[in-house]
């Protein structure tokens, strides 16, 4: 199996209009590699080009230049889409179909035989938390959350190796979200690559190992969540520090605050932080916290987006 589930090389999409000056570059020269078996999040503000990028992976949109490769095959080949399961964001599933019929239809389009579909459908519908009454209900009668669940089941129908999910928990209640996360975690353990396009940064941070941030069609930032959220300093929090020590440490720290008797100090280097820790220990201070500072993915995202 190739090392990368997704590889894009200078992928570009320009939507041309009748007026050349008004041409819109939705995706601009993006080169990205998503390792096979990873959980990868694609982030970006509205209109950043995320959906166009995903559409090019699925060959629903054709690149103006560059190329997208899925498990070693050019995404324009129909066979390249065989290992992909996809849940679109603003899906419009045929409302005349029941949950069962819908899975049967999309399973057949993926080339599954009738007997394989019959075996797989009840298993999947139960897995995404849809009861038997819902199986025979027309999709027109489904709630938003139920549609998301059946949409996820549809994406999993042919046991894909790569799952591309566009806002998978949109409209789903917290219990449902947890259920979807559990399904995705189980797939992750089975080695399925999960490519998540979501606005819910906390969800991405909780689930994805790696992320990329797209801004105005360009790749602004990419890396592991751990790398991107690790801060540049070290934090030491002490309870009941003697006044002389507090004055001394405050003078050496990059920042310091004291709230309810807890002194919070921020040091630039590990050496400085360790030295301060030794002194606090020698002065018999109680240590509340010691460690590297971290930022949230939201902070990283905002910094990237606002920094443009």
């Amino acid at each position, binding site marked *: 199996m190739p090392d990368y589930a997704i590889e894009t090389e200078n992928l570009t999409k320009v939507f041309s209009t009748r007026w050349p000056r008004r041409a819109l570059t939705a995706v601009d020269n993006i080169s990205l590699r998503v390792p096979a078996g990873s959980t990868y999040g694609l982030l970006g503000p509205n209109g950043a080009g995320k959906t166009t990028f995903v559409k090019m992976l699925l060959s*629903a949109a054709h690149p103006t230049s560059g190329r997208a490769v899925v498990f070693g095959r050019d995404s324009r080949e129909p066979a390249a*889409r065989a290992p992909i399961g996809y849940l679109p964001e603003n899906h*419009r599933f045929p409302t005349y179909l029941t949950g069962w019929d819908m899975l049967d239809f999309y399973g057949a*389009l993926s080339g599954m035989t009738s007997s394989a579909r019959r075996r797989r459908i009840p298993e999947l519908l139960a897995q995404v938390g849809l009861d038997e009454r819902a199986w025979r209900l027309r999709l027109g009668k489904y709630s938003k959350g139920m549609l998301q669940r059946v949409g996820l089941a549809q994406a999993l129908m042919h046991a894909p190796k790569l799952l591309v999910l566009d806002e998978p928990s949109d409209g789903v209640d917290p219990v449902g979200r947890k259920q979807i996360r559990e399904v995705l975690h189980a797939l992750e353990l089975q080695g399925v690559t999960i490519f998540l396009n979501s606005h819910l940064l906390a969800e991405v941070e909780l689930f994805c190992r790696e992320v990329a941030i797209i801004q105005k069609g360009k790749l602004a930032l990419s890396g592991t969540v751990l790398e991107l959220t690790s801060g540049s300093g070290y934090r030491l929090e002490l309870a009941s520090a003697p006044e002389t020590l507090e004055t001394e440490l405050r003078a050496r720290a990059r920042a310091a605050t004291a709230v309810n008797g807890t002194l919070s100090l921020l040091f630039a280097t590990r050496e400085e932080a360790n030295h301060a820790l030794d002194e606090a220990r020698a002065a018999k201070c109680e240590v509340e916290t010691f460690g590297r500072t971290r930022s949230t993915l939201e902070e990283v995202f905002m910094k990237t987006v606002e920094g443009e």
Partner: protein
Amino acid sequence: MIPTIALIRDTFREAFARRIFWGFAGCCTALLAFLVFIMRIDVVAGALATVSIFGRAMPTTDVQGLVQQTQSVIAMAMYFFGMALAIFASAGLVAAVFEPGRIELLLSKPVSRTRLLLGRYAGNVLVVAANILYLTLGSWIIFGIKTGMWGAGYPVSSVFTIFVFSVLLAVIVLIGVLWESAAVAIMVTFGIVIVTLILAQRATIERLLSSEWSRDLVRILYYVLPKTSDIGVIIRHLILNEPVDSWMPVWSTALFGAAVLAAGILHFRRRSF
């Protein structure tokens, strides 16, 4: 093959859900019921004894003439009115596929775009063909049982009706791919049908035109566009068991349909959604 069958089955399901199929089938069944229960034909020793509709005796000629004339009326009604209804119904079925949120999911499957479009096209043709064959074969069997007349012209004529519908459906597909609009597809298709009906009178039109270039234009349009009126005449000849003068209207219409469908496929393959 599995994806193609799935696409055809999906088109039937959508036609069922939109009541298109059942609407057509209901009209056909009503006509067949009329022929079975209301129209009474008594044939005695191969000659027509009486024909009665709603219990009233009708003036008649001979058995074969009556059957052929009735079949011809049914076939023409199906050819023009049935076709108009089929165009209205099919335009929505084609445009629905291109709805955002639906097309992306279809394109994400390991099926070529050509197959996706042809699968939907074939499904649509089969939905209409099923109803045309139901009415034609149903009425043919009723006439056959009641009169013993089993001429092949009438069932064969239904193939030509389905053929012309499939050509006009190619226009609907092309417009659907270009503009994703059922309304535009209906307008353009009816526009073509009306123009072809006018062009069928090209001999008269050419006499009325003063310049040679305008006469050439009429001729070009006549040969390029489908010949709905001329094929209607062929259908009538077939039912009345008369010789067909020329098959040119059929093959030139087939060429038009193939070219338009190919253009639709080509554009669909190139399009970004």
